[in-house]
């Protein structure tokens, strides 16, 4: 089994499944060399085993003094256990993240995830944060990707659970997709507040995929300026895809578009704004309110974004379902932003 106590003991959940049994079925996951990980922690014993077990052998996982981060090879993944890390060390790690954002993962305690994530995002290089206690499968999937694995399908987050799908070509597709979320919530007896979160993240991601994502062949936004109360003048081509899966312990929503139009140069600012716990402002005028990603992030425990510029964007939202909204509110927020190479 995976080291560390799984957060949810009462229900059998795929999060408790040993990674070695989980990743067998993914032909998409294919590292070309053994992963190399440097762990920065004041108490490495509490997570080095988990990191080792989350990676396929022969992973090279070593404890690294923070002053050696700058001299590590760029391909080395760095896991920063931010619990109890002295502030000067945290700042050094944040600098490493600015230089190698794709290869730096921060583990932050849930109770401090808001403030630490906000501070790290302000430093400019934050792409990967997991709020502790992190679910084993979550750590496994994130580490694999941070070490260079290819993108995996959303089903990796809920193996053996069927997902409902819905094409997204226009606003008329939104009610059907939201009904799929409601059906999953009803089937599993979700409390109303958790259902509200699921519907919120679904609606925001779908609206983004329909109005914000489509761009012309030259990269110009097609519908971003439109009021969200107006239907789209033409169907989105190629259409996006909505997926939802739920096993009673975890609900996973994914929305994919075929444009990859999130602007790379805006990412640090957008992420900084997204993780702000309060003080958000709406954008006046036509178009979106500028809060879609903010509301999605604050409605899930884990937001995973896979961006391939000019090609596709997949956003996955994950909500743990045991213990009601209160547990959700205490769990903190995790996110990943993976940026692939575009055409």
């Amino acid at each position, binding site marked *: 089994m995976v080291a560390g106590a799984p957060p949810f003991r009462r229900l059998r959940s795929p999060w408790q499944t040993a990674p070695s049994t989980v990743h067998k079925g993914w032909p998409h996951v294919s590292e070309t060399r053994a992963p190399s990980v440097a762990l920065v922690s004041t108490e490495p014993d509490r997570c080095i085993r988990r990191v080792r077990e989350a990676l396929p052998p022969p992973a090279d996982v070593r404890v690294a003094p923070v002053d050696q981060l700058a001299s590590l090879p760029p391909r080395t993944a760095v896991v920063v256990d931010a619990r109890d890390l002295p502030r000067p060390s945290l700042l050094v790690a944040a600098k490493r993240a600015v230089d190698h954002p794709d290869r730096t993962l921060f583990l932050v305690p849930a109770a401090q995830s808001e403030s630490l994530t906000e501070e790290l995002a302000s430093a400019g290089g934050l792409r990967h944060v997991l709020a502790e206690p992190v679910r084993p499968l979550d750590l496994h999937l994130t580490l694999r990707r941070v070490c260079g694995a290819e993108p995996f399908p959303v089903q990796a987050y809920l193996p053996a659970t069927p997902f409902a799908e819905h094409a997204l070509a226009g606003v008329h597709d939104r009610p059907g997709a939201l009904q799929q979320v409601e059906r999953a919530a009803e089937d599993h*007896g979700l*409390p*109303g*507040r958790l259902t*509200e979160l699921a*519907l*919120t993240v679904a*609606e*925001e991601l779908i*609206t983004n995929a329909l109005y914000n994502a489509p761009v012309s062949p030259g990269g110009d936004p097609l519908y971003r300026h439109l*009021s*969200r*109360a107006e*239907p789209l003048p033409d169907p989105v081509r190629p259409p996006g895809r909505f997926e939802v899966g739920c096993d009673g312990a975890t609900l996973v929503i994914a929305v994919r578009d075929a444009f990859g139009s999130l602007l790379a140069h805006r990412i640090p600012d957008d992420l900084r704004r997204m993780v702000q*716990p*309060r*003080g*958000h*402002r*709406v*954008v*006046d005028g036509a178009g*979106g*309110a*500028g*809060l*879609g990603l*903010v*509301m999605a992030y*604050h409605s899930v425990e884990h937001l995973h974004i896979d961006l391939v510029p000019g090609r596709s964007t997949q956003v996955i939202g994950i909500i743990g379902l045991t*213990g*009601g*909204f*209160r547990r959700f*509110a*205490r769990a903190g927020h995790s996110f990943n932003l993976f940026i692939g190479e575009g055409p």
Partner: protein
Amino acid sequence: MTSRLQHRFVDDARSQAILSGIISEDADFSQLVTAAQQAALTLRLGEIERISSTGVREWILFMRAVATSPHPVTLVEVAPTLVRQLNMIDGFGGSATIASVVLPYYCDSCGKEHAQVLPLTPGEPRNIAENRPCPHCGEQAEFDDLPASYLAFLDGA
């Protein structure tokens, strides 16, 4: 587009309205703005299920519109989904008086939710009971949010 937000006035004087459903880009507040221009208006918000990002903007525009009225606007039984926005979004409450909020409770024993209304009377303590008897099964239901931060918006008021 059919609005997912409904409202109904509960008196002939149009001084009280109950809002229900989803606040989104299609929300139409025009009748409520007119009512607020003519007399004091109380909005009961306990039946709001959810709000979208574009709904947040429509709501803030509504709050700005009623702020120009000489008559007060009071929000009562503010639903948890709107309390979240009060805590996150600048200007969400506008100049309205927030007279009470809904406190959500969740019972681990039977898995059901129930709500209590907490009056926000100026000068009086705002205590959130962490546990209450579940009206469905009699076991202890737990406050289904974080008591320390649920009313954080009042600190910035």
